[in-house]
């Protein structure tokens, strides 16, 4: 997977027609899109809730600080998660 192809200054955001919401029954975070519903794990939720104009680098730094994690390892996770969501057209880059 070409997870390094996206620049650190790219700003990931939800694709038009995709909504991030809390499922009131389960309390979990879900992505709503034209064809259905995707229940998010905690990592995906933490990343997507930061896709609000922040750059990829800023998202990684923010998460590293909050979770006291190694930014380098975290960057791989973030890029892989975003690449998967991008492939499924759930996010796009500004």
């Amino acid at each position, binding site marked *: 997977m070409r997870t390094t192809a996206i620049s650190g200054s790219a700003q990931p955001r939800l*694709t*038009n*027609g*995709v*909504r991030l*919401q809390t*499922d*009131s*029954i389960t309390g979990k975070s*879900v992505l*709503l*899109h*034209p*064809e*259905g*519903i995707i229940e998010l794990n905690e990592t995906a939720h933490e990343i997507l809730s930061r896709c609000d104009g922040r750059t990829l680098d800023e998202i990684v730094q923010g998460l590293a600080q909050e979770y006291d994690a190694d930014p380098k390892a975290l960057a791989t996770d973030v890029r892989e998660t975003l690449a998967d969501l*991008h*492939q*499924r*057209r759930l996010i796009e880059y500004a």
Partner: protein
Amino acid sequence: MSAHRPYALLAEITHRCPLHCPYCSNPTDYCRATASVADPEAGRRSACPTTALTPAHAKTNYGELSTEEWQRVIREAAALGVLQIGFSGGEPLARRDLPELVRAAREAKLYSNLITSGIGLDDTRVRALRDAGLDSVQLSFQSDDADLADKIAGAHAHERKLDVAANIRAAGIALSLNFVIHRRNIDRLPQMIELAEVLGAGRVELANVQFYGWAFLNRAVLLPTREQVDRARNIATAAKTRLAGMIDIFYVLPDYYETRPKPCLSGWGQRYLTVNPIGDVLPCSTASSAIPELRFENVRTRDLDWIWRESESFNRFRGTQWMPEPCRSCPQKEIDFGGCRCQAALLTENAANTDPVCEFSPNRAIVDEVLRNVHSSRNHAHDWTYRINPSAPSSFESSRALA
């Protein structure tokens, strides 16, 4: 808390439609639907309703639920756990109160999809729907070619749809293109995908026709050949790869040509519910016409919560206890749920049977016989029966049908 909760509500807000597509999954017998409004007890057992039986509101609005009734249904659905609503029909734009219903959905935090022919969706209405909170539009096309598309729709619609697609894009609403694929248009799959690219759609649904309602009636004309289906599958697979990240391609398999049944609805009464124009609540939109022995509850007499949890119709095929052999002992039973109950009913006259598409079904020969006959019926457009509208007085303007 019940183990099952619905995620999506299909709101069939009207069966009126300006198009006459012969593959429509709506019931061919609207009389019964009207009859159940006129006399809920006699309901589906009666033949066409007499004028004397039809209450005043049914005469003026086909017995359709009112704006207030739909708003209540939407709130009850959200309370049950529904996260998405699809406004469908018929043509949902035939109801002038659609923006009010979309607004109710938004207020209930539902994600709203409009599933439409686009006829009647001018720039003003697109913006009204967007402002009401509409999330996504699924616009149907019958082909990429105007002449063929209009022949299939039985109406002059194609050129107008092109304008509608542009209006939707201009309003900033997510656009999907929906194609129903059948023998007459399946060979134009590459051009149809190209149309989606040109129109800037984010998603394309290429759905091989499924045989319910009018499509079941027209099956002999609509069923593609095996060669057509094999080519289409390759084209769709290649396009999916080529357009990954740009256009999401969703290919619905031609299940008669499969050896295992589709996991219909992800199981009966598990994730989905449909409310039809008159308020009957169905586990599946085709169940009322395909499974005549099931009695459905109506939102005018019961709340949605009770219907979902307690009704006989929703519990009839829930889980796996109802399954006969070969499903009962099959390792796939939690994967395909025995296939489609409506298909079992339509093809074997018993909704509890294994979907006859399954290679293990003792009734698979019924499907094979249909496939064997596909080459013997060289049919043309005039051989199919166009979908007609429910008969009742109407101010709704339908497009001029092609003679």
